[in-house]
């Protein structure tokens, strides 16, 4: 190190005791085993989050969140602003990839039972972040104020409206009135750029703190192998460099997608036009959308829609609470039942997404 840099380092070290931090970093090890690949999906999700923050802020420089101007401002970004098309395409593509990588991350944690004691809170903060991501997807989708977004928002908010008792007030709260109007755009814009990022950042901080405090989770089979046979790799620099290589690959994939498959803008929303044929939600809502199509209007005395929403809500809640009811995994015992549930859910989501896609 150059003397000036050394001096600067000594100055900061004297005040913040960086030595301890470096010692901590140097002691961090990542277990190496046949399932190690799944460790990379958390890191890459973090990388995609950073891209979203940066491209999101850039879009904010030109975006105008009102009924009259939203669509036109994105047209302006895409056709007049230098590299505007790239920034907007990146933001849209990253959003989709982000949800995909967090889903992979979540399911890998689920199947490895990495949520088991003592990592219940890490799982809980992660699940909350995943729900927030879906919220980001939903709120961000309306911002271009195009035809598809207009009806997606109508349907999405109307679905919450069917929930007994709390549904109606929540619907009004989200729409800023009884209908999807400019007021809805203002609200969802506020959620998308202020409320959700604020909460998300706090959860992300906690999530990362927990991971660092507890270290990487070891799968059950790894924990059972004798200590001498367990392989590890230093986090710094070995694991971090591999992490960053993966980030670089993902960045390239993103660049290819954004350049060769630029995100479409569609036609401006018109509250007095019929819903266009072939209208579909984004892929990550497709399995729920497809299920709702199959539920009959009435099941016994209950509305089909209400039943569907309540069942999805309950399933999501149970899923989030898995560390608290899967006691077997917490005791270090194998629990095949969890694998069957996980497999069923994965197959259900994949099957209904494909049917929804083809329909």
């Amino acid at each position, binding site marked *: 190190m150059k003397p000036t840099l050394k001096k600067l380092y000594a100055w900061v070290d004297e005040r913040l005791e960086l030595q301890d931090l470096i010692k901590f970093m140097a002691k961090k090890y990542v277990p190496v085993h046949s399932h190690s690949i799944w460790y990379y999906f958390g890191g890459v999700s973090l990388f995609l989050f950073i891209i979203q923050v940066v491209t999101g802020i850039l879009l904010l420089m030109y975006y105008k969140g009102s009924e009259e101007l939203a669509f036109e401002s994105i047209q302006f970004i895409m056709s007049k602003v230098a590299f505007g098309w790239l920034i907007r395409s990146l933001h849209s593509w990253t959003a989709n990839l982000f949800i995909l990588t967090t889903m992979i991350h979540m399911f890998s944690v689920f199947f490895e039972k990495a949520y088991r004691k003592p990592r219940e809170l890490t799982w809980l903060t992660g699940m909350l972040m995943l729900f927030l991501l879906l919220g980001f997807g939903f709120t961000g989708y309306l911002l271009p104020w195009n035809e598809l977004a207009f*009806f997606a928002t*109508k*349907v999405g908010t*109307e*679905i919450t409206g069917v929930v007994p008792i709390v549904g109606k007030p929540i619907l*009004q*709260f989200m*729409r*800023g*009135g009884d*209908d999807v109007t400019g*007021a809805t755009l203002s609200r969802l814009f506020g959620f998308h750029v202020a409320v959700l990022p604020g909460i998300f950042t706090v959860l992300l901080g906690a999530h990362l703190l927990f991971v660092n405090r507890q270290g990487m989770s070891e799968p059950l089979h790894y924990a059972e192998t004798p200590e001498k046979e367990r392989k590890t790799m230093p986090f710094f620099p070995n694991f971090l460099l591999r992490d960053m290589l993966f980030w670089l690959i993902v960045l390239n994939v993103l660049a290819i997608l954004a350049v060769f498959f630029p995100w479409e803008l569609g036609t401006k929303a018109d*509250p*007095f*036009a*019929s*819903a*266009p*044929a*072939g*209208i579909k939600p984004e892929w990550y809502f497709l399995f729920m*959308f497809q299920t*709702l*199509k199959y*539920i*009959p*209007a*009435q099941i016994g005395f209950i*509305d*089909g*829609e209400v039943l569907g929403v309540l069942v999805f809500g309950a399933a999501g809640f149970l899923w989030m609470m898995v560390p608290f009811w899967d006691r077997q995994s917490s005791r270090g015992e194998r629990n095949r039942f969890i694998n069957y549930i996980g497999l069923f859910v994965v197959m259900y989501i994949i099957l209904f997404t494909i049917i929804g896609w083809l329909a």
Partner: protein
Amino acid sequence: MSDISDPHVQQDKRDFLKFALVGGTFAWLAAVIYPVLSYLKPPKQAEVVVNSVKAGKIADFANDSGSIIKFGTKPVILIRNPKGEFKAFSAVCTHLECTVQYRKDFGMIWCACHNGKYDLNGRNVSGPPPRPLDEFRVTVQGEEVSISKLS
């Protein structure tokens, strides 16, 4: 005068302070939360009550077609069946509020969002819609077609 070192007096004082503190905290919370919740509740805006609108001339609507007409802030679908008769319904699907359209090929009113179908009397005949579409009255005076609420 009571003795300050009397344990009963001290306990009374503590209880009072606790009560004041907890009560004060709750009152303060209520004083913050109530205005915030009220603020978030969208105010009722006076809407012009529309009872009837002019849809256009008879010649504007071909036989076997449907058009969306602005009825105040809500869309209404005006159907002219193959025989040339007019019918009008609320265009808001009773399922999840998408705007419906007329499908010539089915001879039905169709919602693209979840494949809901209504017959030309507005009755929900297939798919998820739970109720028929609300009907509107169509009156033809001379060449002029108007739509009004069924009262």
